[in-house]
Structure formats: structure tokens, C-alpha cells
């Protein structure tokens, strides 16, 4: 299943995470916007479940923007 920027942004902005999402662009650093370890865990658990794929902890450490996540999901789905 392929992901779109809008879908990932919707998850980021779902309200479950504590980061600042106002004016967040798809290329902006999620960690600089306040994504902490708890947020990252919740975000990638949701992504795993929604797109039925496996994420490893070193992937989580590497992926820092919505664009990164979209590319990762679509690469896994390919």
C-alpha cells in the first residue's frame, strides 16, 4: 500500500503527538518541531499498522520528515 504526503501529515497532525504542527511542511524536521521518543514510537506504530509493513528502530532514527516517511513507506511497498 502506497502512502501520500497528505496521509502521513494527517497522522502527524492527528493530535496524539505533542509536536508543533502549525505551518509544518512535508520537508520540515519533525524532531525540530518537537517530536520526541514517545511521539516517534506512536507515529511509527501507526504507520506500521496502516501500511502493513515493518519498521526498525534504526529506520525511526533516520526518518525525520514527512517526505522521508512517504519515500520509506513507498519503497517498502514496491
Amino acid at each position, binding site marked *: 500500500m502506497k502512502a501520500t504526503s497528505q496521509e502521513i501529515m494527517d497522522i502527524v497532525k492527528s493530535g496524539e503527538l505533542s509536536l508543533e504542527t502549525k505551518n509544518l511542511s512535508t520537508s520540515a524536521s519533525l524532531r525540530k518541531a518537537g517530536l520526541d*521518543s514517545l511521539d516517534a*514510537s506512536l507515529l511509527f506504530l501507526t504507520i506500521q499498522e496502516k501500511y502493513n509493513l515493518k519498521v526498525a*528502530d*534504526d529506520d525511526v532514527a533516520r526518518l525525520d520528515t514527512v517526505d522521508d516517511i512517504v519515500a520509506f513507506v513507498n519503497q517498502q511497498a514496491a
Partner: protein
Amino acid sequence: MTGPAGIESKAYRSRPARREDVGEIVRLYNHVTGRERNEAEHCWEWWETPAGAGSMWVIEETATGAIVGHHGLIPIRLRVGDQSVLAGKTENTMVHPDHRAKVLYFLYEKQFAQAAAARFDLLFTTSGYGAPGRIRRKLGYQSAGATTYFLKVTRGAGLQRLALPVVEKLTTSRVLSRLLALAARGASRPAVLAFRGRTQSAPDVVVRRCHSFDEIAGPVEALWHRTAPAAGITVERSAAYLAWRLAANPNVPYLFFAAWRGAHLVGYAAVELTAGGEAVIVDLWAESEQPIFFDSLMQGMLRQLDGEGSNAFVFPTLQGENSLVRGLRRNGFLDLGPLLRRLYRRAKREQPELLVKAVRPGLAELGLYEPERWYYTALFAEGLRTAAINLRAPKRDEAAS
């Protein structure tokens, strides 16, 4: 060795802590907290409790095998209504700063909590704020109330000493700060009148300072067994537990007071004297049938401590209308909660809360999440030395919880 629940682990793995990890865990603790704990202090807290060794897990970096994270639950017996339950108190939750952005800590603690369910009836944390608070709420912990300090001052000097840091917080202007400090000095003597209580002491109750806890260990345990049915939710005050938590505590030398009615013990208290000169009342337990025993012990103890130079008394507890809070108010203690809440809001920080998670079915229905049901003293805390009466709001990223 396993990775975190839900996400494949390549960079880190976890396992239960072993005795041979003590040195590395202590070094991690000292690095994260800036404190200087030694291995003996760690072993007292984690390996030698009356309820057995704590449940501890470590997170290792896969590539090096280095311990970069730790989470633990200290076993502590609580009385919840008519039940004796084994609780796990979260402590020493920490991840090395170099690894915080990479370790998915929440997933590890979720896994540790699942493992702990086989041993503990309930879990609790006294660090219900910031990242640890968010994590634990996600894990199903719920608030049982906000923690607070009750304060009583018996002389103007005590109030001045406590007021000065607050005055410094209110303004960055040195001139205004000095003026406020002078005003505080002038107002401190009449302000002490606000701490007058409305109590009576029983003439036949004598309060004595003990040379050691051993003198009263047996009578305190007998007192506990007599009074436990009316205890609400609190720490079980067995002689073995108090001897470990208070008398054998390597971090703090406590003073003990006992209230006697003839040969009959009607109350006991443990006090820590801080470097700043305040007396922190860590625990006070008295016959519950009549408030006069609580009041006689409190007043007798305060008189003795005041005579020895202590003039500010602090009682950490939970906000809420319970028997302990009523007892403190009767004895002239004022809740610093409103002031603390203002300071927290000013600092845009969260107020610490007691968070609890019932594991055993049916416990939640016994009032676990109602502050009115708790008799909460500093016995619930880790047992570290109180550096100073801490009116500042905690930082969000304070790591050891």
C-alpha cells in the same frame, strides 16, 4: 534479549538487569542525574528491599553491548482498603543523553510493564509530569492526585529563608528583589501567626525522641496492625519495611519521635533535617480513633525541633480532603499548592502528580484514583536526601523517575 514491543530492534536490545550490571547502572545514573551514588547505595535501594530485589531492565546498544538505558520497579507493600498489595514504584528511568533521540523508550517501558504484571498488583510513579508522565499515561496510568507541600513556620526566620527564593523568582530586578526581601523580613513575624493551629494535646501523651528506630520497631508494627483497617491507601508500616526504608537508608539519617500513653505507643514520626535548616516530616502515623493522638505527636515533636533550632516544617503529601490533610491543617500547616501551581503556570511546566495503574482486577474499584482515599507521605518517595525545599517547577526532561 529482546527488542521493544511493536518495532523491530536493530540498534538496541533489552534484558533483565543482573547483579554484575550494578557498576555500569550506577555510572549511567550518575551521568544522567549528576548525582554521586555509590554501588552500596544502589544495592540498598534495588537489591535489599524487604519485598525482594527490584524488577530492573536494561537497554543495551547492540553494537557495543553498553548499557544505555534502565528502568526499574521497586517493590513496596501497600494497604488498599482491606487488601495487602505488592506495588511496583517506577524509579531510575533513564536513557543516556547520547541515545535519547534514537532509543524508542516508550516501547521498552511498555514491554517492561507487561512483564511486571506477572509480579505486581499495581504500579505507581511519583513523577507524573513531563516525558515520564506522558509515557505512563499512554501505558494506562491514571492520576491519583497532585503532589504538594504543606508548610508550617514557627518563627519569622524560617519564613524569610523560604520566601527569599520565591522573591528572587518574582523579579529579575535586583533593586526590586531587595525591596521585596525587606518587605518579606518585616512581614515575616506577623505572618507566622497564620500558621497557628487549632489543636489540643492529650495531657497523658508524652512525645520522646528515639535514639534509634530499633527502640520502637516492635510497638510501631503493633500500632500498624491495630490501625491498618482504617488506613485507606498507604504504605504498609511493618517493622521490616520501616527499618529498611528509614533506619538502614544510606542516603538520609532520619530522626524518630514516638508518642507514648503510658507504655502504649500511640504514634511515631520520622523527620529529615535539611541542609537549609527545614525539618521535612517524612512519615507520621498515629492511632486513628481520635485525632488528639495525631495532634499530640505533631505538637510535641514540633516543640522539640523548634527548641533545637528548626523553625520551618514541611510535610510532602497529596492535595485532597483526606484525614492527613485535615490533620495538617488542624496543626497549622498551610498548603503551598496554590503558590506552586502559580509558579508552574509561570514556568509553563506541569505539576507533579501521583500516577497509578491497577494491574490486579478489582483494585481500581477500591478508590485508587481518588486522592481522598490516600494517606500519602514521603514514604512513597525514593528516600533521597532533600537538598532544599524545592519550590521550583520541575524541568520537562528530568530523567530519573
